[in-house]
């Protein structure tokens, strides 16, 4: 890691449901061999996705001095997914940047899908903030989790805090296996994720990294296709739609500046206008 570059890796794998120590060991091994400064892993990468009523028992009370798995000590920086058991006793679906084996930064998932095939709202509490932080490499970063990324207002909140890198953890089910996706992807749904990631990167002139998981839980197979997108919207690295993989890219602030230079979108963005309009809309006055 230098003052203006960050070697980022995304570790796509299939966490074993309920086996926190084993998953942590796999993440640490992948991080150690990745050559990266920071390794992003999928949603709930320490616990597996479908934790259901085990959410509390698998949780770690980060605010009460709960200890992260030993395997993560001595590892390069990693962003893991875990159940953060709040002081209020509520389990939260959280993305946690771990540095030197300790919590460096945390994001609690805001939008918990509870419709169709999803029932996260039955088991998790809802996060309330989107904050930027310094993930390394001299830039600003933010974390979102899966459904959060489908709410562009959260991306906007990250963007106006000056992020250069948006990291998204996902446990996105693969759908549309009959036709498959573009470029031979296993699932049609991967196209949508790619489209959102590329559009977000391009509009805001930021790097977007998406870590989706693979493997099966219940009847669901997760769709993989993790990717790292440049601030130009170009895909820098893409994992396959099945199987474990590590993808890498070197991110630089210079590249962010270069990608933004032809435009003035970031410079001209006016959050006060948005704030004023939102206030008027929410208070029901013109």
């Amino acid at each position: 890691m230098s003052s203006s570059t960050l070697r980022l890796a995304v570790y796509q794998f299939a966490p074993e449901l309920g086996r926190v120590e084993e998953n942590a060991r796999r993440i640490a091994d992948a991080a150690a061999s990745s050559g990266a400064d920071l390794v992003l892993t999928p949603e709930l990468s320490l616990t597996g996705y479908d934790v259901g009523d085990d959410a509390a028992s698998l949780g770690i009370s980060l605010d009460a001095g709960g200890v992260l798995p030993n395997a993560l000590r001595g590892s390069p920086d990693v962003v893991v997914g875990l159940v953060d058991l709040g002081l209020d006793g509520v389990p939260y679906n959280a993305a946690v940047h771990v540095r030197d084996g300790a919590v460096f930064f945390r994001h609690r998932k805001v939008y918990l899908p509870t419709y169709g095939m999803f029932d996260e709202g039955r088991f998790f509490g809802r996060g309330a903030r989107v904050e930027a932080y310094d993930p390394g490499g001299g830039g600003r970063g933010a974390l979102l989790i899966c459904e959060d990324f489908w709410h562009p207002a959260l991306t906007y909140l990250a963007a106006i805090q000056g992020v250069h890198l948006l990291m998204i953890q996902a446990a996105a089910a693969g759908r549309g296996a009959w036709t498959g996706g573009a470029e031979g992807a296993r699932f049609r749904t991967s196209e949508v994720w790619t489209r959102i990631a590329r559009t977000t990167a391009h509009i805001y002139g930021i790097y977007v990294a998406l870590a989706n998981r693979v493997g099966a839980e219940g009847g669901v197979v997760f769709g993989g296709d993790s990717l790292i997108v440049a601030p130009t919207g170009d895909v820098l690295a893409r994992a396959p739609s099945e199987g474990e993989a590590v993808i890498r890219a070197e991110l630089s602030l210079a590249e962010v500046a270069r990608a933004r230079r032809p435009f003035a979108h970031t410079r001209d963005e006016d959050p006060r206008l948005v704030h004023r309009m939102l206030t008027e809309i929410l208070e029901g006055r013109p």
Partner: protein
Amino acid sequence: MSAGVEFPPATDLRAAGARVGGVVAEVVRQAVRDAGAAGVVLLDDGTPEASLAGEWCALGGGGDAVWRVPRPGPEEARSCLAAFGAEAEEIASSLEEAHRFRCRLVAAARGALVAHPANKTVLLIAPPVPPEPLLPLGDLYASQVAALAGTWTGPPALQRLANAVGGIAVLDAALHAWLEERRPFEAVVESLGPEAAAEVRRAFEAGRFWRRRAGLVPKLGSRTLGIDLFG
């Protein structure tokens, strides 16, 4: 159904089979592992569905861990029923239950999960849903089975319905549009004609109870029995 939209969507069938089979295999492999089972016993009724399900279960669990159990003949079934004091004059309706019983015995002996090869069209509108814990083709419409295997099977009433509306692809297109694309029943199913629409509605309603108890279905599409809310 969107007017003029082909169902199943045109695609490279070899590639589709590989993708779909891969998903089914992965789910079956994980299910066997989660259940601590030794493999899968397939209720092999000699249908194209059973052929596909057998192939894909073998892909997931290895050929040595899939036991295909054929349907008993009438005499076997009659003996079986007699042994349990359930003699019947007309044996046809009992064959499936005798088959099911045989599968359960084999599964108990092998420590395996039983898989039923029913396709999605059957599960949706030909209740009851089979009670087996694995339904490997449960998210694959009959016309998709036909595209991959050359033909499909279902109960006589479903075959009559499919014939009446112009073929299984027409029926599946309407079901897909109604249930997965969430288009209005009136716009897609009623276009099949009032009698067919009434039959689809009746059969779907009759299946409501059974769908709540569906076995594990590998998710392929947007709305999957046992995984998505279905009503």
